[in-house]
């Protein structure tokens, strides 16, 4: 079997290796530094496993309880923000693309607003809103999900928009409607299956943003993973970094699971995309 010919614009092998090495280092060096930091002995300056051992020590459970609370809250908030993306953003974007394509830019602009506002400005705006939310539905941590639903909009919108543009949703919608589909029938049977990659990317990025969010939770006095790590950091920075590492791995596994869920039900085609030539006598009568 001959080797696949190289694209004329593709970088040379050496260039690819250098690019991979630089990018890999960007990820690996901070993580390796974190690992090394967690192994330091604060007393002697040498290396020890005591910081890791203290994480799982029974007498430290109450100390680190806030972390477990933070992780639980971040999971809950992720689910809430994902629900906002799936139940509000996806149908809205599909509807606008199909029925009001001229408003697509307006929707994009609205979705990008959170990206252009500093978190502190957002919080100032949220304070009166959350005073109202607190009076009406309480101050439980899940209510922070409304704010998170807003801050993930720019990222989720971009992921979905690319997918919508790629599949030509408007023509598919017209085909569905002429075949007798209702709006929700089309959304469920055609739009969602064909937006699987966009939805998957939007969900992934939503989970990642929520697990990494600190400012809103801190300023609105809610506990999530990042605020919990901040609390631990004041008590023991070595253990805090160890927990950060564990969280990093846990979130990575969570994102893998989300990504895997996005592929459930996707059928693989058995043949390569080589169309069969048109038959010279294709028409047959019904019998």
């Amino acid at each position: 079997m001959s080797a696949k010919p190289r694209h004329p614009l593709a970088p040379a092998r050496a260039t690819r290796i250098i690019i991979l090495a630089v990018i890999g280092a960007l990820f690996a060096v901070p993580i390796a530094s974190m690992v090394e930091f967690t192994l330091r002995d604060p007393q002697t300056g040498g290396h020890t496993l005591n910081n890791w051992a203290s994480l799982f020590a029974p007498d430290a459970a109450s100390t680190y309880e806030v972390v477990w609370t933070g992780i639980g809250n971040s999971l809950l908030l992720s689910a809430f923000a994902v629900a906002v993306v799936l139940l509000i953003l996806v149908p809205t974007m599909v509807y606008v693309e199909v029925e009001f394509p001229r408003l697509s830019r307006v929707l994009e602009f609205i979705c990008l607003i959170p990206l252009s506002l500093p978190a502190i400005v957002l919080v100032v705006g949220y304070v009166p809103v959350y005073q109202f939310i607190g009076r009406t539905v309480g101050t439980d941590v899940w209510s922070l999900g409304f704010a998170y639903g807003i801050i993930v909009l720019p990222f989720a919108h971009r992921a979905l928009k690319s997918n919508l543009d790629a599949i030509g949703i408007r023509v598919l919608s017209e085909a569905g409607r002429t075949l007798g589909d209702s709006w929700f029938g089309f959304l469920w049977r055609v739009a969602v299956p064909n937006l699987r990659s966009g939805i998957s990317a939007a969900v992934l990025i939503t989970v990642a943003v929520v697990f990494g969010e600190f400012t809103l939770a801190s300023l609105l006095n809610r506990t999530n993973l990042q605020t919990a790590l901040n609390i631990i950091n004041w008590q023991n920075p070595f253990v805090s970094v160890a927990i950060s590492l564990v969280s990093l791995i846990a979130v990575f596994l969570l994102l893998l699971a989300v990504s895997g869920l996005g592929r459930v039900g996707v059928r693989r085609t058995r043949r390569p995309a080589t169309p069969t030539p048109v038959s010279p006598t294709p028409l047959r009568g019904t019998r």
Partner: protein
Amino acid sequence: MTTSSPVLPGIVGTPVHFEAVSLRFGSTLALDEFSLVIAPGEFVALLGPSGSGKTTALRALAGLEAATAGRILVDGGDITGVPTNKRDLGMVFQSYSLFPHLTALENAEYGLRSRRQPKAARREAAQAGLDLVGLGDLADRYPHELSGGQQQRVALARALVTRPKVLLLDESLSALDAKVRVQLREEIRQLQLRLGITTIFVTHDQEEALSVADRVAVMRDGRIEQVGTPEDLYLRPASAFVAEFVGVTNRIPAENLGDGTVRVLGSVLPVAEVPATEVPAAEVPAADATAGGLVAYVRPENLRLVVGAGAGSTAGSGVSATVVESSFLGSFRHTLVTLPDGSLLRIQHAATEALAIGTEVLVEAVAVTRVVAA
């Protein structure tokens, strides 16, 4: 009144009436009191340049655009306000529009799924639909595993499986390469004749329209310029626009001789009638009018080339010309000649008459398609 299909039970030929349908996009009038009556089982092509309103008319019938005035009747019932998904029409789009996540069979059964038919029944009907378009063996293929022609056949099967009242083809062949396009249009016509389904075909390709349709409606600025059989349009165009848009034509200055004849390129030719919409009889220029007063539309096959003795002379009928281009097109040849005044004429003649560039010839007109005021 409807007519039943002899091939697919349930498919019937249904009459369609457009009654003074108007449709605006902002300040643009896309359809201007568009009226057309289509008989049950008839194949009508809407032909016209870009922006003439042909696709808008089809989309208004499908319910994909809302008419701002007028009525659309299918089988006698007013469907103007009926939602698209309740109109029971089958539509094949230019861009295939197959659902990428479904196989050919699943695509074909989609309309029946929307109608909540039992799985076994819809599978059987979908398979029959694919068999009908010759793709029964490729039922488990995904759209990306099919060629453009095959995808369009699946789209056709998908539209027919629901037994629609009318089949709508929106530039359905435009995305295909030339050979497949010709093959598929012939197959669609055969299928339409066998099923007896009323079909409306939108195209900007005149050859496509003339070759498959019972009648062709030529559109311009949201209105029908002329509707008739392909022969009517080609041989008896109702307007200068139709004469120029349908087929190739030459515009040649003509002189009115006042006795039902005109002089074109020195030849005296009869003019059957001068339609009132173009040049009212009372306004036909007098016999002494200048040659620039009228313009005759003459088809390339109605111009004759004389080569050899006398070709360079201007005495008698015909005018001298010089060959500037000659193209061999298989069964015939197209030759472009220039007249002494610099104007160009396109002439169709036998493929065996090869002419070198620069050859002096005599050009004669043997028939006139239409005469209008200049």
